[in-house]
Structures are given as structure tokens and as C-alpha cells.
């Protein structure tokens, strides 16, 4: 490896840099268009930078009465902040029981969970709508949240994680007189931090970016998430383009920040979820 000289390495960096520019191009476009005036953004002449910076677009975005952007962002936040921790906890609980508590029928419960993985997620939006609709979940936040709290995928990943969990920790708890639930709550759960962070981050991203299900169940503007609001904005009659791009920026900002801060967990979550059997 040390034989490689600088000139031989250079093409690799040139290629990687060119690709990096291409990958960042849509982000640049978003920022550029979000800060341009309406005339500038639709001008036939290309300009690289907005001049002057038109911050008023962000005000216009939240002032537009036909698209309740602020409330939609709040809904997105609510959905993601409930789905991620609760869904991860349910997954961890079931995964632990399936991996470490040996009772008759355990195999059957595992199969019961596994079978639902076979059915493609988004294809079931009609059946799920039938059930959630009949329970009165249309146009409600809980209707958006409830079906996504139970992820067979998360259960299986946690089970794999707990199958490799050191038995000494549980033994220590047993010697201290803890029952099964006590061991799980006081010893196992606090020692599952990295896995919880990884899968929780993925669940947060997934529910923040979800589109089909919130579109199906949240038909009233009061239950729109940010994605639905943007999509409606996108197909509205007269589009205020800079405000639309400002909306896009505001919507991706929390997740981009999360990717930069918690990338370690996100990467290990992605790696784990690709290696399912």
C-alpha cells in the first residue's frame, strides 16, 4: 500500500470530490432558491447566488394561510418524538423476551412476529386504513402514530442483539433477587443504550419523513405533517417558489442536524438493519 505514490492517488480524490459536489448540489439549490426573490428565482438567466438575500421568504412560508406550516411541523415533531422512543421500547421488550426468557410457546410467538415481515409495509395501507378508520383514527395524531409503534423488524434486530448479550449481567441480577422484569428494567435496558439509540434514530427519521400513511389517514389540514403540507404546497395553484424552498429547508433541517451529530448511531443502525437474516 505504501508503494502508492501521490499522482496515483490523485484521481481517486478528484473522482470523490466531483461526486461530492454532485451529491451536495440539491442542498445548494435549496438554500439558493430559499433566499432568492420571486422574480430572481423564475428569471430565465441563471445566477449562482441570491442577491439580495431574501429572508422574507421564511416569513411568507409561515404566513401562508392555505398551508398551516407551523402546525404541520409541530405534528411531525409530535409523531416522531412519540413513535421513536415508544416503538423502540416495545421492540426491545419483545426482543429481549424472545431471546432470553425460555417459556413454552416462545417459538410460536417468534414465528407470529416474523411472518408479518413477509408482507411489504406500504402495500398494507388499505387494510390498515380500514382498521384505524373504524377505530376513529382518521384525522388524528394517534391514527398516524399507532400502526407504526409495532415494528417486527425492530423486534428481530433487538432479539439478535440480546442473543449475544452477556449472561453474567442477568446472573448478577438473579443473585440480587431481581425477577425477570426487574432484570430487564434495571440491568438489561440500561445496557442497551447503543442499540436503542441506533434503532431509535432510524425510527425517528422514518416517521419524520413518512408520506404515504400520513397522507392516507390525515386528510384534514389540522392533522397534516410537514411532508403533507409541503406536498400540498407543491401542487397548489399558485406556487410561491422561494417560500416552498424555504419550507423544504425548514423540514430537512432537524434531520440533517441529527445526521451530523448522531451519525455514528445512524450508521450502525443502518448496518444492523441490512444484515437481517
Amino acid at each position: 500500500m505504501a508503494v502508492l505514490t501521490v499522482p496515483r492517488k490523485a484521481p481517486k480524490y478528484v473522482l470523490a470530490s466531483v461526486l461530492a459536489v454532485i451529491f451536495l448540489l440539491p442542498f445548494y439549490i435549496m438554500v439558493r432558491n430559499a433566499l432568492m426573490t420571486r422574480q430572481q428565482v423564475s428569471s430565465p438567466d441563471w445566477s449562482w447566488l441570491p442577491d439580495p438575500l431574501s429572508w422574507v421568504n421564511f416569513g411568507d412560508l409561515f404566513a401562508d394561510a392555505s398551508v398551516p406550516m407551523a402546525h404541520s411541523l409541530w405534528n411531525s415533531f409530535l409523531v416522531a418524538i412519540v413513535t421513536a422512543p415508544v416503538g423502540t421500547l416495545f421492540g426491545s421488550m419483545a426482543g429481549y423476551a424472545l431471546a432470553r426468557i425460555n417459556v413454552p410457546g416462545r417459538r410460536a410467538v417468534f414465528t407470529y412476529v416474523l411472518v408479518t415481515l413477509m408482507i411489504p409495509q406500504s402495500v398494507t395501507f388499505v387494510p390498515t386504513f380500514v382498521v384505524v378508520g373504524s377505530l376513529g383514527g382518521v384525522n388524528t395524531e394517534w391514527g398516524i402514530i399507532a400502526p407504526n409503534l409495532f415494528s417486527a423488524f425492530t423486534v428481530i434486530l433487538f432479539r439478535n442483539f440480546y442473543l449475544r448479550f452477556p449472561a453474567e449481567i442477568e446472573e448478577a441480577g438473579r443473585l440480587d433477587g431481581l425477577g425477570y422484569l426487574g432484570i430487564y428494567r434495571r440491568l438489561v435496558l440500561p445496557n442497551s443504550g447503543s442499540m436503542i439509540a441506533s434503532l431509535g434514530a432510524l425510527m425517528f427519521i422514518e416517521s419524520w419523513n413518512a408520506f404515504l400513511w400520513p397522507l392516507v389517514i390525515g386528510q384534514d389540514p389540522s392533522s397534516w405533517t410537514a411532508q403533507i403540507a409541503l406536498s400540498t404546497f407543491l401542487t397548489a395553484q399558485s406556487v410561491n417558489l422561494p417560500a416552498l424552498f424555504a419550507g423544504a429547508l425548514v423540514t430537512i433541517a432537524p434531520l440533517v442536524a441529527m445526521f451530523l451529530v448522531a451519525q455514528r448511531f445512524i450508521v450502525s443502525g443502518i448496518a444492523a438493519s441490512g444484515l437481517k437474516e
Partner: protein
Amino acid sequence: MTAVMEKAPAVRVVAKRRRRRDWRAIGAFTVLTGPVVLGLGLFKYVAIAWSFLLSFNDARGTITIGHWIGFDNYAFLLGDDAFRTSLTTIALFTVFIVPITFVASLGLAVLVNSIRRGKAFFRTVFLIPAAVSYVVAALVWKMALFNGLPSGVANVLGGLFGADPVPWLSETSPPVYWVAVVTLRLWLQVGLYMILFLAGLKAISPSLYEAGELDGTTKWQAFRYITLPQLRNTSVAVLLLILIAAFQAFDEFYNLFGTGLSGTATAPVKPPLVYLYDSALGDQNYGVGSAGAFLLTVLIVVITLLQGRFVGFGKKD
């Protein structure tokens, strides 16, 4: 030695627990698995059973069962040109997106893996689009990159090479909208699969390459005869993930080709899920919507199994 001595009492404790038909274990197991078992029961098992029954009912504007019409909904779907066209659309989409995403993500992984300095930077840059939703990406693609105006980014770039402006999303002959659809998904997803390949590459023992070097293999030979076979499991998983995701495409089609009056007309491109959305939510025909969901599920399961079979055959060669 000490480890063995410590094990003995533990084994006896476990044996004693077994004999008591441990009700405390059964209770804990029930409490821990309860939420998931009930949730999946309601939102998967009950939902799918109900929907399956609905698919044999005339369920227009209702979700109650009672107007049995046999296979009429299925017959309607299979006879409907729009549904058959949606299947062609998704098949074409799959043919484009699967190999391109696979090769691009593998290529990126090999590239990033071979970089010493700045590796983390490039990995982040290629992964960061995964933070963006399909809605936002569709917005950027439709309103800026491929808006068809002379000032659209794709046309500006084309102009540098002397190309005339192209109405990317409305032109159907040739169907250039595929460029927009495929690049959008590629941009969003390629980083995710790159991460999977990077994990696979990391697991390859360096001694294999060292042995190869002793045998005087070229870089290409090392890739072809060491890297690729070692990535076999990762490749199968990645292929399957790309394929299943492609079959469930909805968001970008809905937002790129939506019926909204956003100035420019777009080509009428509808994959099956958009068709199902229109019939279930637009026409309130839950019978047809359910039947379509089942046809699509069967299709995906069959393709998944076929691919497993195909890959399985390859293994024996």
C-alpha cells in the same frame, strides 16, 4: 477452573426453575411481548384478514362486509388498462433502478473504503441525502433541477454542451422523465446501501488481499475474485432491499407527477401504489383497493422467492 466451579450452582438453579413450570417467567414473557403481539395482531393480522374479505365484496364507500361479489374486484383490476399500465411502469422502474443503485452503491463503497484521508467526510456527504424525504427531493427535482425551463439546472447544464431545453417531466416520447425519477431515488438511497457495503468490506480479512498480492493479482482481479465473492451475502441483502423498496415506490411518483396545477403539465406516470391510493382513497372503493393490495403483495413475495431461488442456484455453480 474458577469459571467451571461457578457454573455448577447456576445450572442447579435453572433446573429447579424449570421443574416449577415457571409462572413468573411466563408472566414476564407475556408482559414484555404483549404490546407487540397485540399491536401486530390488530394492525397486521386483523387488518389483513378484514381487507382480504373486503376484496371479495362490493365495498364502495363502506368498509363493512356483506355484498359478496366473488372475484369481481380481481377481474376488474386485471382487466383495467390503467392497472396493467401501472405494473409495466413499476417493472420498467425496477429494471432501471435496481442495477444502477447496486453498482453505484458498491462503487461508492469501494471508493470511500480506499480513501485514507477525508474518509469520514466523503462518507457523510454521500450519506446525508438519506436525511431528506422523498417529498422534499421531489420538490427540488420538479421545481429546480428538472423543471423544464431554460433556467432549470438540468437544462442549464445541458446548455453548456449546446443541448436545447428539455421538458423533463412532461415529455413522453422519448420518456425522459425516467432520468428524473431514477436520479431522485438514486440520490436518496445510494448512501444507505453504501453503508451496508462498507460494513461488508470491513469484514473482509486483509490476509486474503495479502495472499492475492503474493500471487501477483491485479487490482481488478483482486476485486473480481476476492472482494465480490466475499461480499456475496451483503450483495444479496442489498439487491433484495432495493428491489422491495422499488416495488413500493409511491412518494416520488405522487409528488413529481401529481395532478396538482403547478404550472407545468406532467406525464401521466402511475405505479401500482398510486393507482391503489386513487381507487381506495379517491374513489372510496375499498374492495378494489384491497384486491390490488393482495395482488401486489403476492407479486412481491413471488419475486422475492424467485430471487432467492435464482441466487441459490448461482451458489451451487
